[in-house]
């Protein structure tokens, strides 16, 4: 039998979802981040997405590395297991949890330092395995928790608070994961919840590795004048290329072309759909090389292309490729795992 979270008595004005849970049931403990930190907005978007998707919180696992960003899993889904691992190694923990129990909804939260410096290898290989998880990079161009050194996502010419100018070219998670054959490549901005929430929903429902790189300003160390990761810079150069609406399995499609071009439906494995609305008419989010070209071109102009930039629902996920049994390995009875004494005797005939 499975147990579910008992709904708290909802206050009159609180909306509940079909599980009888309110949005507050999807929250976590109080944030200890700096007031105004972009990461807190992402936390709020995650809460909203899970609440609206009506996922039972305890069927989720929240995994992170180390950094201000990696602290945030404590601030959402109180009744989900959390795993604050070591710096840069969240992907391997997530891989293990997913290997053991494929039913768990796996959300990984990381920072640009955590994923693009120390964790680059694990990050790239999680993409390659296409393991089924939502992977969020809370990208602020600096190491927040160690007080503001440049990270590998810092743009050339971006200035640190103390005046130093970054000289090295950035590692862009979008270009990088396109090159690695990722199946769901998205970018957003912590200040744009309307864009972010549906992306999170789609990422959760995508069967495979769903990356959302969220520009998330660090108010303490990287929100000043000459930073390219500040609120003001992002407000100016945040360039949505494709908007994605998420539609739950039962819902009917609100087919509206929107202001920018026609809507393209993408069917997800569980029956839900994403409606893609192209903000940029020349953009094709199913063409890997074209996506690369578009992002790169705009990057050279200092623009940060956002949206669901690439999606490929055909790629098989880790367990599908491996041919693992459909139910969680953690629930497999021991009798189905042990070949037993007779088989052991048989096996040993070959060892004589």
């Amino acid at each position, binding site marked *: 039998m499975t147990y579910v979270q008992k709904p708290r008595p909802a206050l009159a004005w609180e909306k509940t979802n079909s599980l009888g849970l309110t949005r507050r049931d999807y929250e976590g403990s109080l944030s200890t981040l700096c007031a105004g930190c972009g990461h807190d907005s992402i936390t709020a978007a995650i809460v909203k997405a899970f609440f609206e998707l009506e996922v039972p919180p305890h069927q989720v696992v929240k995994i992170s590395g180390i950094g201000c960003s990696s602290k945030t899993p404590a601030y959402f889904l109180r009744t989900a297991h959390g795993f604050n691992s070591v710096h840069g*190694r969240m992907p391997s923990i997530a891989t293990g949890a997913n290997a053991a129990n494929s039913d768990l909804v796996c959300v990984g939260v990381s920072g640009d330092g955590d994923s693009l410096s120390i964790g680059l290898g694990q990050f790239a290989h999680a993409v390659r395995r296409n393991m089924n998880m939502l992977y969020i990079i809370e990208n602020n161009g600096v190491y927040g928790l160690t007080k503001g050194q440049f990270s590998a996502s810092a743009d050339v010419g971006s200035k640190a608070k103390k005046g130093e100018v970054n000289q090295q070219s950035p590692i862009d998670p979008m270009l990088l994961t396109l090159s690695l054959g990722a199946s769901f490549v998205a970018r957003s901005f912590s200040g744009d919840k309307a864009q972010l929430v549906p992306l999170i929903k789609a990422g959760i429902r995508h069967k495979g590795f769903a990356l959302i790189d969220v520009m998330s300003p660090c108010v303490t160390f990287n929100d000043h004048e000459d930073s390219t990761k500040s609120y003001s810079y992002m407000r100016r150069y945040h360039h949505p290329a494709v908007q994605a609406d998420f539609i739950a399995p039962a819902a009917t499609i609100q087919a509206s072309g929107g202001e920018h071009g026609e809507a393209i439906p993408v069917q997800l494995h569980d029956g839900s759909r994403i409606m893609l609305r192209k903000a940029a008419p020349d953009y094709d989010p199913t063409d890997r090389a074209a996506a690369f070209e578009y992002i790169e071109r705009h990057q050279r102009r200092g623009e940060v292309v956002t949206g669901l930039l690439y999606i490929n629902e055909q790629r098989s996920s880790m367990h599908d490729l491996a041919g693992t049994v459909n139910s969680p390995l953690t629930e497999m009875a021991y009798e189905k795992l042990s070949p037993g004494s007779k088989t052991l005797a048989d096996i040993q005939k070959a060892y004589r």
Partner: protein
Amino acid sequence: MTEKAAGDAVRINDFVIKLANVNGTGSASANSLLMKAFFRMGIPVMGKNYFPSNIQGLPTWYEVRVSGDGYTAHNNRVDLFVAMNAQTYEQDMAEVVPGGYLLYDDTWPREKMFDRDDITLIGVPLAKMCNETFSGVRARILMKNVAYVGALAALLDIDLEVIRGLLNDIFASKDALIASNLQAIELGHGYVREHYPCPLPLRVEPSDKTSGHILIDGNTAAGLGCVYAGATVGAWYPITPSTSLMDSFKGFCHRHRIDEDTGEKRFCIVQAEDELAAIGIVLGAGWAGARAFTPTSGPGISLMSEFIGYGYFAEIPAVIFDVQRVGPSTGMPTRTQQGDIAMCAYASHGDTKHVVLFPANPEECFYFSVAAFDLAERLQTPVFVLSDLDIGMNDWMCPELKWDDSYKPDRGKVLTAEQLEEMAYFHRYTDVDGDGICARSLPGVHPTGAFFTRGSGHNKRGDYTENSEEYAEVMDRLARKSETAATLVPEPLVTRNSGARHAIISVGSCDDAVREALDIFEQRDIPLNYLRVRGFPFVESIADFIRAHERVFVVEMNRDGQLRNLLIAELGVEPSRLVSVLEYSGMPLAASLVVEAIDGTLAEGVAA
């Protein structure tokens, strides 16, 4: 052939053959055929492979010891050398004991070079015969190896029926292969019978000392143990000499863990991008509730250090096999050593102490790998199984493995959904019964079980803390858990000899040589007691054992006496009592080294 001095003393079922080959020429299967032939004749046998860290073209050696008395340790004496590699003729010849034999391929005669007059040279034109008989370069090379087995069969009186039986089993229904192999056997056999007086004084006679036994390597046995323990997730990055452990697990799973109807796999093996990822995957899986493991060797443990400390502090079950090779650094990847004892005991920064099991042979590899999973879940911590290249990659004669079908995995204190449903709250790190072990909950089971796992400071409720008292409370409980662990790891094995004033303590693959040395001392009326350490943290009885002897020789295979240091530091025993006997050259331990070292010390003792 003229028999040389001492060569005519008949030695039945008691000699050492060493074979020199070029690697990548398929000699391994021929050598294993030879070893198995002795085994099937009922004679205890040992076979050790000394191969290079290379794929093709370099010298490689194989040592076969036949011992009716059951001594299966490495032995520096070589009675018969099969010298198949011209590059090493000279050094090979030098190793033969006076009165011994050297067989070589005299297609290209080298009588001048083999100039020792105290050994007997046996030339067999292996290449010539095989070139005449077989076609194809590869086949000719392979068959040369089989042919020398035939030659040895004639020289040593190996039962050809046994060899035939083996070939049948090995090649199953591939009749053509069986035929050509038999042909090669007969080439060698026939030539030798024709040209040399057979058998040699050195020879075998059928016996009955191998029934109820198997020949198996430790990695195969350990992989099999993982299957029987119910492990479902294996993560690894290839590294010699641990690679075959995962090959074994994979192979057995493919045969015994695939759903017959659906073809679905009841296991998940992840070839990780490196060792840091491999241990991460194991911790993630263990945390989620699967039995998970990773096999590696020294460099892998170094890379895993950070995560191992996490596993200790956040208390996550994990099983880590360290199949030791020669360190430090890349060292000699194809030689054996016990150089990782200290590292595994205390791996990672800060105060840590890990559970380590020390199998001494493939049989224990099997049982200890099952025990390791039980202990990892019972103690909620990473558990090391510290094997080595010698155990892991060489075939050892072992009693047949047994399985008790009533075995149930010990999952330790895992809360079920039902239990959690009854609880008002759940505190992950609260020890209610004083054994230092707290209840844990698995993800996906019940909302009440949710908690936030972290490697940063936490209190007994599982909350983040930077408070000194709360932190220290958790650390003190972890120390208590170590004490519990000492009572749960495999107990030391003690062998007592009446009248013993001194004793030996040893560990792992030293066991065979130590037991042989004990017998030698006993024959010389110097009784010694013997304790073999099998688990860490150490149980207090080891200290008692040490204190009960005047001198304790700590026999181990590393330069720095790592086990000895550990005994002193952990048990508070007097260092002067403990005398190191060390072999760290990369070769397996031989009884003679132990005997000489102990003789030396005891002589000093008398003199002083």
